[in-house]
């Protein structure tokens, strides 16, 4: 506060965005420098190691028809979109509120002159910054390592796929993040239900008919252009949903889940165990 400036009315909470920014700074520090981030960095960075290995050793040994770009497509379609990104979202987003409750620090947070929704918004922004900072560079580096393994020819034609993949990675982190934030606000122990959602409910995406529309991964898979050969039901029934529908639904999931989480968090009484 600058000298001579009128004193702020401390009985009123800070404006939404200003409060969120303060929470963002605090939460970002705790999120980036944590063991969780170290583990996620390793998981998200594994394709980069694979890319290095491919260029150094595997490119000469694999059949010519398997190109580096094909492998990049497999990494994006299977490794990132179906596994690591949802897991990253689960472990970060469910902890936004649940960690504060479990650590019994929620009381200190709620007694600050902050709107509850700005607390959630700030923490969600920190989650987004952390996960995007880990995943997007890994995707870019993996792309260049694999797509240029046999020379730069043809990379220009692949660039739109890179941009699309970056968008899908970001949208996936936002969508799963919003969903698991809501889960974290609703439940005391949200990780197990989150895992069940990811590895049981999301399997509906492999079924025919309208079932994939009840999953998040069904929309994400439809947005990326990589469709490597799959096995089992996914191979037989895999369907591609229209892109405008996918974008609309995923943005809707973010808005609805975050909105619901903010609403519930604003009204919920947190009674800590003694």
């Amino acid at each position, binding site marked *: 506060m600058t000298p001579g400036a009128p004193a702020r009315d401390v009985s009123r909470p800070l404006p939404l965005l200003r409060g969120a920014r303060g929470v963002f700074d605090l939460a*970002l520090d705790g999120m980036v420098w944590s063991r969780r981030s170290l583990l996620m960095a390793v998981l998200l960075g594994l394709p980069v190691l694979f890319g290095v290995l491919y260029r150094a050793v595997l490119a000469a040994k694999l*059949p010519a028809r398997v190109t580096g770009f094909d492998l990049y497509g497999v990494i994006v379609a299977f490794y990132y979109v179906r596994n690591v990104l949802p897991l990253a979202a689960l472990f970060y987003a469910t902890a936004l509120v649940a960690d504060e409750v479990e650590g019994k620090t929620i009381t200190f947070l709620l007694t600050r002159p902050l709107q509850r929704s700005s607390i959630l918004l700030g923490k969600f922004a920190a989650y987004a910054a952390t996960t995007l*900072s880990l995943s997007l560079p890994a995707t*870019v580096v993996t792309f*260049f390592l694999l797509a240029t393994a046999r020379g730069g020819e*043809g*990379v220009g*034609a692949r660039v739109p796929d890179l*941009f699309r993949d970056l968008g899908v990675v970001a949208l996936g982190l936002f969508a799963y993040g919003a969903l698991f934030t809501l889960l974290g606000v609703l439940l005391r122990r949200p990780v197990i239900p989150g895992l069940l959602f990811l590895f049981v409910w999301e399997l509906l995406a492999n079924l025919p008919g309208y079932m994939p529309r009840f999953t998040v991964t069904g929309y994400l898979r439809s947005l990326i252009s990589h*469709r490597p050969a799959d096995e089992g039901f996914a191979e037989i029934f895999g369907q591609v949903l229209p892109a405008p529908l996918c974008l609309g639904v995923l943005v809707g999931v973010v808005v609805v889940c975050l909105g619901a989480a903010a609403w519930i968090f604003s009204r919920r009484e947190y009674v800590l165990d003694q």
Partner: protein
Amino acid sequence: MMTRSRFVVFLASVVVGMGVLVAVGALYLHPARAAVGPLPGFGLALPAETRFLIGFDARRLTASPLYARFAKQRAQGRPDVFRELEEKTGLDPERDLDGVLIAGLGNAKESGVVLVQGRFDRSKLARALETEGKQGLTWKSHAGTTVYLFNELAKKPGALAFLSDDTLLIGTQAAVETTLDSHAQGRESLRGNAGLMTLVEKVKPGSAFWMVGDQSLLAQLPRSLPAPGARRDRADGPAVSLPALKSVIVTGDVDPQLALEIIGEASDEAAARNLADVARGFVALVSLQANQKPELKELAAAFSVATEANQVRLSARIPHEVLEALRPKPAAPTPPTATK
């Protein structure tokens, strides 16, 4: 003051920003047209009147064990025509071809065009055409490219031209010139055929071969087939009527087994069920012939028919051994008759 965590976020942003800049640079320097499904970028220069498209991944097909098995048995080595072709043009189809795209056009003037992608010795090929080409071969310049014309005075002269250093364009003169015009002007004229584009986008990626056809092609197919046991030479005999298809997508692979998938879109659910029943009937007929040829039973078992709303899906997974068993065996040479 930048905290450590903000520095990490900043560093990540720099990496992503640099990657995006390099990517944009690559796009600017090598503005290769993005493909649509399995259709390579240069294929978008095909005319919008295209009724069907057939694509082969020649590299995958020639590298497959199936090709090796059948090629070995057919020719005991390379066919003479491949050897001659390589000597005259430097082109080895088994080594130098990457992909083939066949486009069938709707009008009588422009029947069709074939795009062949691979590694060509352009000068050697051109010299071979100009010096050893057949009688009736002429050439002219069109859209900045030399177009070789076969039987220029005929009703539908054939033509050959290089779309680029690695893409050969062969077809009727009208179709070749139309495609060259679109390519030279950077027009993606095939996008004007929205129906066909939608089908191409649905082709299963990674297929070794594929085909899509829209309603304009399928309307020309026969609407009935002779019923089993009916005489083919009698038009008024019993027949099985086939529901009209709105579109068809065929995809396939040859490794590790011959995998085929045909998706037909019927006008409604009832028509799809009807067509599925016809398909199942034919599969059952094949199975009934198993007494004469046991391999037919395995062949019939390899097929499955399913419907989903107004779509019929016919899938087949045929092991190479079954194909081998079904191939007609060469007739045994008759022993010379003994003379007294």
